[in-house]
Every structure is written in C-alpha cells, then in structure tokens.
C-alpha cells in the first residue's frame, strides 16, 4: 500500500516537473534557454548549434527536434530535461521543419539556399531536394498528407509540393513576403501571414484561389492554434500585436499586445497564457489571454525565435 502510494506520488511529481518547462531557441546566440514555466525563470542555457530557428516534437512525442540552419543538423532533445540525446548531421540548412500528418515525410525548408528537402519521416533519408526559389520560409500540410505548402518569401508566392511525386505541383502569386502558413481544421483553406503587408491571405488551395484577406496588423507573420479547434493566433511582427482569428468566420475576434517583434508562439495546456518570442528585445513575453495583459517578460538570448512548451494546448 505504502509502495503504491509512493509510486503514485512519484508519478504526480514527475508529471508536475514535466509540465513546467519551456524551450526557447536563441537564434543569434546558438543556444537554447530552458525556462521553468511555474517560476517563469530561466533554469539553464546551453549551446545547441549554429542558427537554431525552429523546433518541434517528434510525432511520437519522444523528443524535441531543434533545427540548426547553419550547422546543417537536427538535434534531438529530451523534452523533460533538455538533455541532448542525438545529433543528426547532413540535414541541409534546416530553417523551418515539419512532419506530414501521416508521418511518412519530414520536410525542411532551406530559406537561405532556396531549397526544400523531403526526407523519409522514419529514418530521415533524403528522398528529394527541390529547387524552390526564392526563400522558402514556412511549411504546412493538408490533412491527407498529399501536399506540402511552402511560402516563398522573396518571390511572393505559395508553392505546393506533391508529396507522392515529390515534384512542385503548382505555384501561385501572393502578397509581399509571405511567411507563416496554416491549414484550417476543415482542410479547406490555407491562411498565409503576409509579412510585408498587414493581412492574412486566405487561399482555397484546391481551387488555387484567393478567397479573402483578413486584415490583422503590419508584419503578419506566424501562426499557432489556440487548442480549441476553432481559433488560431497570429503574430504581427511590425505592429507588435497578436491577432486571434476565428477559422470558421475567417475574421479577427480579438487582439493582444506583444511588444518587441513577436514571432513564434505557444499556448499553455490550460489555454490561459500565450508565450511569445520577442525577437528584437531578447525576451519571451507571457500574455494572460483573459485580461490581455503582459504578465511577464523573461530575458533570454539574442534573437529568440522558436518556442515550445512541454505542457501546451492541443495543436488544433
């Protein structure tokens, strides 16, 4: 009885410890800041590689993958401790990364070198390297894993890559400097943050048509789902605010202040807080979504970019 109680207590303690951790990639410092989300303090900072920009969990949630663009590698971290478990070399200039929903493919956008690479999702074997000029920046997939959509930041286009044939299926012109790409839950519309303008372009990707512009703020940049299956947050880098978009009505339903060049975001598991990397001020900004107030700004490294909360809201 005593032993089983101890076991339960240990599990609770472990779960509680797991729940209180955030990872921030300091792209200008080659480091990762690990933050205790309860005390909202940096507990450790360690070097990870050259220009770490984006990170994501493996589909089985076993590891966190950090993509080091200039190191040409992926680093696999323990999601609970941040310990480096494995370094996978020869991944060419991985800027933005993503797994297709069926986990068959791992796609890496090489923004600097105008390439998009398709790897096997199981063993990271390179399947295809595609020339995708200019400046492929963000990646998204349809739910059936037939297409990878890539925003081409310097040629003002959206590209669709057929994952089966691994060829460029089509490209369409879009607003100035497209950045983040997001698929609505009904798998019908793509939302694209137009960094050089102040809106989100809505695309009916099957018809390859622009269907709506949602005006958000200057420097519309990147998305993260709110976790309720209906709303998505968008960072507006130049106007220093976050827009909350209803994916059904395709309208902005709320706004939140986010100073210092908001970039990547994550939502806490309880849906109460939004954590945002503030690129220009070297901080992570924590926003209370109910009061719309900034509850904390946590100093991290230079040019913080990707952020990941261990206990995050569902990615829907």
């Amino acid at each position: 009885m005593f032993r089983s109680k101890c076991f339960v207590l240990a599990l609770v303690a472990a779960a509680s410890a797991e729940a209180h951790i955030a990872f921030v990639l300091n792209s200008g410092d080659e480091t990762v800041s690990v933050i205790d989300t309860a005390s909202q303090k940096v507990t450790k900072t360690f070097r990870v590689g050259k220009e770490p920009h984006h990170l994501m969990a493996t589909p089985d949630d076993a590891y966190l993958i950090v993509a080091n663009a200039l190191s040409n590698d992926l680093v696999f971290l323990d999601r609970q401790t941040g310990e480096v478990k494995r370094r996978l070399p020869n991944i060419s200039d991985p800027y933005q990364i993503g797994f297709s929903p069926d986990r068959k493919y791992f796609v890496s956008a090489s923004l600097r070198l105008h390439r998009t690479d398709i790897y096997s999702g199981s063993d990271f074997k390179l399947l295809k390297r595609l020339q995708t000029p200019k400046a492929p920046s963000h990646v998204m997939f349809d739910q059936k894993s037939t297409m990878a959509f890539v925003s081409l930041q310097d040629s003002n286009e959206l590209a669709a890559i057929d994952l089966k044939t691994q060829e460029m299926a089509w490209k369409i012109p879009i607003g100035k400097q497209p950045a983040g790409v997001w698929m609505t839950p009904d798998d019908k519309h793509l939302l694209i943050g137009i960094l050089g303008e102040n809106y989100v372009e809505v695309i009916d990707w099957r018809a390859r048509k622009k269907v709506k512009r949602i005006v958000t703020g200057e420097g519309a940049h990147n998305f993260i789902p709110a976790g309720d299956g209906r709303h998505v947050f968008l960072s507006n880098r130049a106007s220093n605010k976050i827009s909350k978009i209803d994916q059904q009505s395709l309208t902005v339903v709320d706004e939140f202040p986010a100073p210092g060049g908001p970039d990547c975001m994550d939502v806490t598991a309880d849906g109460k807080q939004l954590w945002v990397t503030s690129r220009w001020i070297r901080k992570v900004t924590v926003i209370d979504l109910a009061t719309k107030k900034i509850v904390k700004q946590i100093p991290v490294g230079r040019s913080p970019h990707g952020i990941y909360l261990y206990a995050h809201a569902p990615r829907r």
Partner: protein
Amino acid sequence: MWNWITTRFAELHAWTFETLVQPALYRFGFMNWDEQAFEATELFLIGLIEVLLLWAIFRPVEALAPVEKWDDRSEAHVDIYYALLSKLGLIPLFFFLLLTPAFDWLNGNLRMAGIIPPNLEDMVPALQSSAVLSAVTYLLILDFFDYWRHRFQHRFKTWWQLHALHHSQRQMTFWTDDREHLIDQAISAAWRAALGLLIGVPPVQFLTVTLISGAIESFSHANVRVKFGSVGKYILVSPHFHRVHHAMAFGYDGPAKGCNFAQVFAFWDVLFGTATFAEEFPATGIPDQQTGRDYGRGYWSQQWLGVRRLIGADGK
C-alpha cells in the same frame, strides 16, 4: 556590470531597429530583410561604440607617447573616413549584399550535387559546447588566413598595387587600419566568405572575432612608442611590430624583404620566418613617394589612383 551593459545595449538596439529601421523596411517593401537588417543595426551600433572607445582611449595614448609629431595632421585625417565607413558597417554591408547571392548560389548548387560544406564543429565537437573555446579557435583560424592573405597582398604585384594605398600613409595612426582600396576590401570579403563556406564560421563568432581583431589591429597602427616586452612581442602584434612592417623600404618591399605580416598574433611571423624585431620605430610610407609618386590625398583620389596603378595607367 557586464550584464547591465549588455541589457542597456539590447534596449538601444531594439529601440533603434523598431523606431528607425523596421518602419522603413515595411514602408519600402523590404520586410524579408528584417532579420538581416536587425543584425546590421547591431553591427552599426557596436561599430559606433567601438569607434568612440578607440578614439577615447587611443587618441590620448598617441598624444602621450607619439613616435612622430606632426604640425600638420591633414594627411592623417582621410583615414578617419576609411575607419568610419568600415567600422560603422557600410563597407561590410555593401560587400555582404554584393557577395551573398553569389556564395549562396554556389552553396545551394553544391547541395544539389549532394555536397554539404563541412562545419568545423563536425570535426571538433568540443567547439559546440564552449563559447570561449569556439571564439579563440575561430580567432586563430581567421587570423591565420589573414596572415596569408596579407602576405599575398605583398607577394603578388597586381594585388600590391591596391594594397599600396594602405602603406602610402606617412602619418600612421590608429585610424589607418581600415585605409584600404575598395577592390582590396572586396577581395578580403570574398576571402573570408570563402573561408566561411569552407569551415562554416558561425555569425556570432565572426562578430566577436571581428571586434577583438579590429581593436588590436587599430592599436597596432597607432602612432605610439609601445612594445609588448620580451615575451609579449612573440604573441600579439604591437604598434612597434606593425610599424616595422610599414617601415619605408624594408618593411614590405617585395617578397624578399617583407616582414611582420601578422594581423593579431605575431607568432605566425615567427612560425613562417617573416618576423623582424628591430629596435627602432621607423618612418612609414612607400619609397617612391619620396621621388614624387602620388597616391592621392582624398578618399576618391586615392581610390582612383589605385585603379590606375592596377591597370598600369599611371606610367610607373
């Protein structure tokens, strides 16, 4: 203290970028350059602080213990323009914009051929774990290659026609370090970019190394009677050591007589047999200046005469 300084600097950097630079990028449609512009803003501010510090420290030292005293310092003044153009980042930015597309094109095509240029960290993993070790290593490597670049500037007659501009200063001061012909600076930028491609110099280390070496090289040109002692003279390039390199006639005059080519670490000259530890503080300049050869007084006349020397059009 250091933490206070870096925090205030980060605030200044963010304010300058968000108030002056980013609105212009947005206004004129260059938001795809915002991350590079953010880094360029940092370089400009660091350069500004560096220039002020160099002036505040080295100018009084030059006044206190000069090698030469000049009633008319006008010949030295043009070097201030060279220093400001380089240290405030205008020249580096120009060559970055000029060379980056070419090197990215080469880099991208190497990858299409299945070749990922190596990273030094792949060969020496310890560099990834220590920022200090990494900075010292890259300082040594870059300085080693700069030693050889400098030797070639003297060894090859065509290249010397450009580099002669640097040596034509007869009122050598700490501003003289950046007195270079634009074509010579383009070659240097390409030299370093090639090295970056070869071993993957991390941007953060490049910045650190540039700052450290820039300060040492500025001091080595100062008009001061400073030697680094019986041990120090073999390690770091002192104003005395470098003045001997600039000495009229024997410091640089052809491959047989050239000496003291090192930029930061004097031991490269010791190692490769080109060190000269003369006792005196010689006069600087080029012998044919005494027989009337004109190297120009203003920035543009010096640049133009450099081109004429290069194509053999100045009749000498």
